[in-house]
């Protein structure tokens, strides 16, 4: 079509790192490594849960001078050490998906795909991100399913949060 006015809401970033590919991969795959770099400078990161595997979830808190934010990764497809696909979203303290804390309209969930490749000790990282293509009907079904599935371990999440808050106090 001639007059393309509709941008697809998607994002691509390519970055090169002077590090071997397994090391870059590990920065996402290992809890210790992830906790060492994730989170914008000036904010304090607390990894509340970390489960890097397909179907696993990582929940974290960011404290930016008292402004608290919670976010969640849900890993979908992992190909070690080449690619990682995950959904990211903001959450409430319990890990329930919530709308963005920013004053702009932000998609509830974003699909992120990170691919890695190494040449001569330089690792190229490509990030593709786009809002999740879900209709409200799908979201509702998903929400209903999750409510029934989560009821079992919602309590556990709460305890974990309480425990984590305590040991860090």
């Amino acid at each position, binding site marked *: 079509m001639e007059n393309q006015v509709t941008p697809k*809401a998607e994002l691509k970033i390519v970055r090169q*790192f*002077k590090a071997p590919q397994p090391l870059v991969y590990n920065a996402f795959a290992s809890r210790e490594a992830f906790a060492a770099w994730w989170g914008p*400078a000036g904010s304090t990161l607390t990894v509340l849960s970390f489960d890097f595997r397909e179907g696993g979830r990582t929940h974290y808190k960011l404290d930016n001078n008292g402004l608290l934010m919670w976010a969640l990764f849900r890993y979908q497809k992992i190909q070690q050490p080449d690619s990682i696909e995950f959904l990211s979203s903001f959450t409430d303290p319990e890990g329930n998906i919530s709308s963005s804390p920013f004053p*702009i309209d932000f998609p509830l969930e974003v699909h992120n795909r990170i691919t890695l490749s190494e040449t001569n000790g330089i690792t190229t990282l490509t990030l593709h991100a786009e809002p999740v293509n879900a209709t409200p009907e799908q979201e509702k079904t998903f*929400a209903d399913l999750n409510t029934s599935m989560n009821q079992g371990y919602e309590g556990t999440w709460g305890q974990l949060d309480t425990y984590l808050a305590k040991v860090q106090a």
Partner: protein
Amino acid sequence: MSIEARRDVFQAIADPTRRQIINLIAYQSMNLNAIAENFSISRPAVSQHIKILMECGMVMVRQEGRERYCEARLDALKEVSTWVDQYRQFWNTQFDSLDHYLNQIQNNNQSDQ
């Protein structure tokens, strides 16, 4: 879970048919039949997409005599670039931090040896 059914611009452009509809009526308003002629899917299906576009604030329907014309509201698209810009900035900051981290641990490893 507190996922609320939302209608927003992201929802509107998530679907390829809806993106095509917006492109089609971006510079000239069209009635439903004229729009539907451009698609192989059924007229009710096109109508459903337009309904969603209206709910997302992307399309306005204007009655003219017996015809209803669909008009694109391109202002709403600005929201998309706002989100993309914010998210790009977010990731670039993360990657700066990753770069710093990778340099640091490699230096540490070297000095250990």
